[in-house]
């Protein structure tokens, strides 16, 4: 267990952030759910980019004799995933706004009651 | 070599001091305006000192030039941000905090009792 903590502590942090994101997803407030979704996704992103890290590595910008570079592929994947995450967040916020305009609340339980009437 | 690290550490610590002052200000001050005032102080000077530390630490002229531009940009934008914040708050009817007369008397009486 200690060995995991010393050599893979960033992965552990990523898992904690994923857990916190999942926890916030169960919040009653719809906007906090969206924040939770973002935290959950960034946890997975941290997992990817940490995997690409290399001790003593330099950013993957080729320069003469630039020393051991960090693996560039996780950065590419996460660049795409971040922007995809933002796009989904924007659409979800549009939905929350509409739900507020029709039902006057952003709390999930009040919303559910309002819909059932 | 030790001199530059000492200078860098000094500048950074001094900048950090301003940040701490700003946080204390935000916690202690009673209303929005005083808090905005406290934070904007740290934005300009505190960050400026830390940037200076970074410039000294980097040592290269190019980086220092970039940092100078960055500092100039910060010098313009953060006070404006504080201004926008305070102005829209005041137009929105957030009253500033005052010590009104009766409260001052009550406070003096309570001090006499202790």
């Amino acid at each position: 267990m200690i060995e995991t903590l010393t050599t893979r502590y960033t992965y552990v942090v990523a898992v904690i952030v994923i857990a916190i994101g999942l926890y916030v997803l169960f919040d009653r407030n719809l906007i906090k759910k969206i924040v939770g979704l973002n935290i959950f996704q960034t946890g997975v992103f941290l997992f990817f980019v940490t995997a690409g890290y290399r001790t003593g590595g330099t950013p993957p910008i080729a320069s003469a004799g630039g020393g051991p570079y960090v693996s560039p592929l996780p950065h590419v994947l996460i660049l795409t995933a971040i922007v995809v995450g933002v796009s989904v967040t924007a659409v979800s916020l549009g939905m929350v706004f509409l739900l507020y305009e029709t039902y006057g609340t952003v709390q999930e339980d009040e919303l559910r009651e309002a819909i059932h009437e | 070599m030790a001199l530059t690290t000492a200078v860098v550490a000094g500048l950074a610590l001094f900048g950090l001091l301003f940040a701490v002052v700003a946080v204390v200000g935000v916690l202690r001050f009673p209303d929005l305006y005083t808090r905005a005032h406290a934070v904007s102080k740290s934005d300009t000077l505190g960050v400026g000192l830390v940037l200076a530390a970074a410039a000294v630490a980097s040592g290269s002229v190019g980086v220092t030039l970039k940092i100078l531009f960055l500092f100039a940009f910060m010098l313009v934008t953060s006070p404006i941000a504080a201004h926008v914040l305070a102005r829209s708050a005041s137009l929105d009817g957030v009253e500033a905090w005052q010590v009104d007369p009766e409260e001052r008397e009550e406070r003096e009486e309570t001090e006499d009792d202790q």
Partner: protein
Amino acid sequence: MSALALELTLLGLLVLTAALTAVIRDVLAATVVFAVYSLVLSLVWILLRAPDVALTEAAVGAGVVTVLLVATIAKTSRPTDHAELSVRWPSLAVIGVFAVGIVTTLPSLPAIGDPTAPIHQHLGTYYLETAPAETGVSNIVTAILAAYRAFDTFGEVVVVFGAGIGLLVVLRQSGITLQPTTGSTPSTTDPGLEPSTTDPHGESSTTDLGREPSVITTTAIRYIVPFVALFGLYIAFHGAKTAGGGFQGGVVVAASVVLVAFGFGIESTRRWLNDTVLTAITAGGVAAVVAIGLGAMALGGRFLEYTVYPIPKATTYGIELVELGIGATVTGIVLVFFFALVGNAETPPGESSPTHTEESK
């Protein structure tokens, strides 16, 4: 040694801000802490030697998401339940067990930073060695993004484009469109944002409280905006050489236009930046990427195969053009997000300006 200390403090700060966002009841406070979380995360990306990701996180994660969140909170209600912090222990326990389960699988992964890990062997080394020579671009991340895995980026630009159009389809129900609301429909009461100007030539887009934008803001913005826009274009253009690229640059350019909207009012900005310009930017960007791809096919190559083009250094120019197309689309769509969500939505029913927080005397 000090690098480890810095890393541990940043990661600790990351977990702390995430936990704070989870427990704080008030949604606006939680959003502010989430913005801090995004900034700390972009610092972590820099620490992990990922400057492109750090730029994107700062511009897109901390910037756009926070602005949209606060705008939506301003438009909807803020439940003022008294409990400052609250924790739901049962769901925490369930998720805790789930997290421990994942942690048990971590030892079977290679240690972080270990150069012999498979991630550094196969694809990693190939890109690091051949990309600069083959694509003539020194920022290897941009090389992979716009050349080797150009199809991912093409799909990703389509997602951004789809989100912009999707948001308009979703909001169409409440009469929100991008057309400027001429005439007297009251634009939104956004306490946080600067009011819009009352038009001199009589057309009264009645601003919320008839506020005049302060001369300080308008003059300051008039000087700042060109530099911000230039910086955004620099990031987009220079993405091939240094960290940066289409996404990050596009967001910064969009931020400069948002600054103008803050300074000179949302209605007048939308009138200046009317639909044709907005469509040209958004659809134009995606269409440019498709055109480059199909052009290569027309010349007998495959989709997005730059080397088929008869011009010298075709790949480098191909990458830069695709980055520009992405930049244009991202700029347009971020503006669509801004104008649709923040722009001309009617005042929400019920409270006139929902986000009054009485300063405790």
